[in-house]
Each structure stands twice: as C-alpha cells, then as structure tokens.
C-alpha cells in the first residue's frame, strides 16, 4: 500500500481495524476520522451540557466548544463570519431549510431553477414548494456525459428567476458544475444561488466567497465527521432577510402571547437543541482536513480515477457514465454492465470485501436522462489507493463469472 495512504488510513478507526476492506462508497458516507470521534467522546464525557442556556461552568464550556466548532466551519468555508454558519441535521435538512425559509419569500409565478443532475434532496423540496406556493420550477438539462448544459441558461431563468439551486458535483457522475457561469447568469437575472456541496467537501476546503454563491449546504458524514450534523452557510445579509423555518427554543428574541420576535442568524435557524457533540466532531474533522496537502491528495485521487476509468473501459459490455476523463470530474465513477444488475454486482463484490453502491443513487431524473434505471458506483476518497482500484477491477472479472 502507498505509504502516504497507509498513514492516512491508520487515522480512521474503522479502516485501521479492517485492513482488507476496499471502501469505495465515500460518496454515500465517508469514514469518520479518529480526531472527530475523539472530539465527540471528549465532549460528551467532559463538557456535555446544553448550549446558550446555562450559566454554570459546564454549560459555559459547552458554549465555548460549540462556538469554536462554528468558527472551524467558517474557516473551512472561508465564510465572512461564524454567524453565517447554521448547524443543521445534514445537507438534506440544510437544503430543506432554504426551500422553506427562502421559499416562504417567493410568490406564485416566481421561478426556481434546478438541474436534472440533482440529488433528490435538492429536487423534491422544490417540487414540494411548487405544490405549496405555485412557484415555477425549471430544469437545467445535462448532456450525454451528465455535465450541466448551460447553453440556454438565460432563457431557462426567464424574467422571474429568484433562485438557482444546483449541485457543485454530481453524486453519480462526479461531474463538476460550472459554478462561475451559473453565478454570473444568476447575478444578471437578480437570482440567488444555492450550491449543494455534499459531494465536494470531502475533496478539500471550500471558499464560498470565491464561489460567489449565496447559500452552501453540506453534510458532516461526507467529510470524515459524524452523522447527524450538516451545515447551511448563507451570506450574512441574505440570512438576515429570511424568516425562520422551525419555531422553538433558541431561535427567538422575545415571546409574548401576542407577538414573538426572532433571534438574529444563525440562531434564528437553529430552533431547539442543536447537534452539539456532532458539530464539535465535525469541526475536528474539518480542522484536520485543513492541515492536509490538498494538491497532493487531488493529484492522487485523480490518478486513481484515471486508473479506474482505464480499467473499466477494457471491460466488454460496460458503459461508463459521466465525463470520459478523470480531470473533469470528482473521483466518482459510475457504470452500467449490460445484462447485470447493480445489486447483483455489488453483492458479488461484497464477497471480495469491496464496498460499492448500486442503485439509482437518489438521482432518478439524472439516471433517466442518462438512459439507465440503476448503476454501480465507485467513489474514491483520500484513504483509497491503487490496491482498491485493482481489487475492484479483479472483482468485476469474478462478477462476470458468477452472474453469467
């Protein structure tokens, strides 16, 4: 095994305990880093108390740890301030938060533009909003390679586009979206931009200010942190103009029988007790990520993607989905083998200790556009190396032998 990868793998408790595991499903859930796990345990065993409520020493310590977590996330995203960071239950909750809070500012006939390549979590909430308020929903199409086709963007936005909500990177094809072009067109139309960063964050720190978007959503479990926590970043003035989504404790200014006022962001959007330990674990994962040599990791991930694509292209009856080359995609590679079902493929691969995902990947509109109902996906993260790729290619030989 590659020495650099071996050193990385040793920091992941599950991978350290399972040296023979070829984990190629990080696009679904990345493994948790030891620092994140330690931070959760340390918090729960030394600082566990509710936040923004107590005045005793333990509660103060919990407040400090939670605030520090918010600052870590802000650094990871290069946010303008920690007040722009809203902790949620995950990326889905963050996207739904925008669909509800921002959605409540829209009127019938206003338009939201999404894309065919969206995960259902950035698709269904907008359909629900359409049902509720009568907004128009329009779709950016994809080309045969799954890349967003931005050729008709101004036309698709029309005159009443209020929001463009798109993925930064497809969870099926790995194709990166041309965020700069989308932001430029949205600005021209006076629309806000929401970027679903769920698949991007495990490939390095992000810069929301350079991206130029207004909202950014991601999940902790996809960037080596715990489950049950996610983040919505919103530009300060945009968040300040939004009504709350959930009502409850922690999100109010004052409550009387006749009237209730809202707290300022981010608390306005964090009703109830937030996922405190999870946020602290997430921050530990992000702090660790910020110490890494990302150009080196990107180069390795891309090389592995190339190796995989080259190997897959030699398999008869195999159709690669997404961009043909590894340099225009995240290291997510989905494929379809004629006559073989992804569930069966993944089952056989599991017998060789390979963890891959088969199915529609919560992206049925995209799969329909690509002409498949289900596919098999290998997703590569920083703890994978050449042995994982070779194991997969060898495993696919057995797949053919076993299933046909």
């Amino acid at each position, binding site marked *: 095994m590659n020495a650099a990868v071996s050193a990385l793998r040793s920091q992941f408790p599950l991978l350290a305990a399972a040296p023979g595991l070829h984990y190629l499903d990080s696009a679904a859930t990345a493994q948790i880093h030891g620092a994140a796990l330690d931070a959760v345990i340390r918090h729960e065993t030394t600082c566990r108390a509710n936040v923004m409520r107590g005045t005793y020493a333990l509660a103060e310590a919990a407040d400090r740890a939670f605030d520090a977590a918010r600052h870590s996330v802000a650094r990871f995203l290069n946010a303008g301030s920690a007040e722009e960071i809203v902790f949620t239950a995950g990326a889905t909750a963050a996207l739904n938060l925008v669909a509800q809070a921002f959605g409540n500012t829209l009127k019938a006939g206003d338009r939201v533009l999404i894309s065919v390549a969206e995960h259902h979590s950035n698709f269904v909430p907008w359909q629900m909003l359409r049902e509720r308020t009568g907004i128009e929903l329009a779709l950016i199409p994809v080309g045969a390679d799954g890349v967003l086709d931005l050729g008709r963007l101004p036309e698709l936005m029309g005159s009443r586009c209020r929001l463009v909500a798109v993925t930064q990177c497809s969870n099926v094809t790995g194709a990166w979206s041309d965020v700069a072009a989308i932001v430029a067109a949205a600005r021209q139309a006076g629309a806000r931009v929401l970027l679903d960063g769920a698949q991007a964050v495990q490939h390095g720190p992000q810069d929301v200010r350079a991206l130029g978007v207004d909202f950014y959503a991601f999940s902790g479990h996809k960037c080596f942190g715990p489950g049950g926590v996610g983040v919505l970043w919103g530009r300060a003035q945009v968040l300040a103009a939004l009504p709350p989504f959930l009502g409850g404790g922690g999100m109010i200014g004052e409550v009387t029988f006749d009237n209730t006022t809202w707290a300022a962001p981010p608390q306005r959007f964090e009703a109830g007790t937030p996922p405190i330990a999870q946020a602290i674990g997430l921050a530990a994962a992000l702090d660790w990520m910020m110490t890494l040599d990302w150009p080196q990791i990107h180069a390795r991930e891309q090389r592995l993607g190339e190796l995989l694509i080259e190997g897959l292209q030699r398999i008869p009856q195999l159709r690669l989905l997404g961009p043909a080359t590894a340099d225009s995609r995240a290291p997510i590679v989905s494929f379809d083998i004629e006559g073989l*079902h992804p*569930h069966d493929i993944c089952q056989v691969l599991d017998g060789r200790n390979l963890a891959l995902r088969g199915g529609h990947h919560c992206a049925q509109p995209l799969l329909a556009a690509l002409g498949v109902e*289900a596919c098999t996906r290998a997703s590569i993260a920083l703890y994978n190396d050449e042995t994982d790729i070779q194991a997969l290619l060898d495993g696919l030989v057995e797949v053919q032998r076993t299933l046909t």
Partner: protein
Amino acid sequence: MNDANALYQDAIKQMAQAAHGHGQLESAHGEARLDNPLCGDRVRMQVALDSGRISAVAHQTKGCLLCRAAASLLGARAVGQDAAAIEAVADELDAMLKGAAPGPAAWPELAMFVPARAYASRHRCVLLPFRALQAALGKVAAGATANVTENHGETKGAL
C-alpha cells in the same frame, strides 16, 4: 463478506433466465405494479382468474437476478392457485428469509433463496414479485377494473 456463489447458484440463474410468465396478458382481471425505490426495480404483474383460481399470469420485471428468478417462479407456479394460497406462500417465504421458518413445503423450489437470508437488503428483491401478484389479486377482489396500474413504491430509509 458473503458467499456469492451460494447466493447466485445455478438454480436461481436458470430460473431468472427462463423468465417464465414474462410478457403481457391480452385480457387481465387485475394488474399491479410495484417498485423498489432503493434500486429502481419494478415488477408489473397481471393476473386472470377462473372461479377464484389463477388461470393466467404474466409479468414484466426489471430487476436483479433474485427478483427476476422469483417472478419467473411465479410465472411457472402461480396458475391454479387462489389468492389465499399465494398469500400463504408469500408469507412463508418472508418468514423463511427472516430465518424463522423452513420455507413453504408446497413450493420447495423456493429453497433456492435460503442463501439470501443473510442479506436483509435483498429480501425485498425476492418478495417484490410476490407482493405485486398479491396486489394484482387484491385489485380483483376489490372489484377494480382490469389494467389498473398503481405505484406501490415502498420506502426504505436513506437512499
């Protein structure tokens, strides 16, 4: 880890390959379509009855080997059965997959699915054609007109 060779034994592959009952009925008394939202598998089952017993069955199945084998087995065995018998077999198959029962004595071929016991995520693949046939029979019992299609998509946690 699993034993893929045990799961994908020849009996299952041959049954799937045979695709007994694949196709459409010209005149069906009941029809139902069930989806597995986890993977997009889909079974459309049509049934015709004569004096309460299945006189013809046809299915269009898009799915994995397990799902196709189960649909094919129904295509081969369902004719002559009534709704109660199909329900009993389906429930016994469900119990067999959950590891609590030996399997339907009247349908010994279903033993080919015993290796799937260890993989709960695959139980639905085996059961989907049975549940589709039950739904189609339910349409007849409810007096629904023929060729009514409905999506009975079930849900399963995180996708």
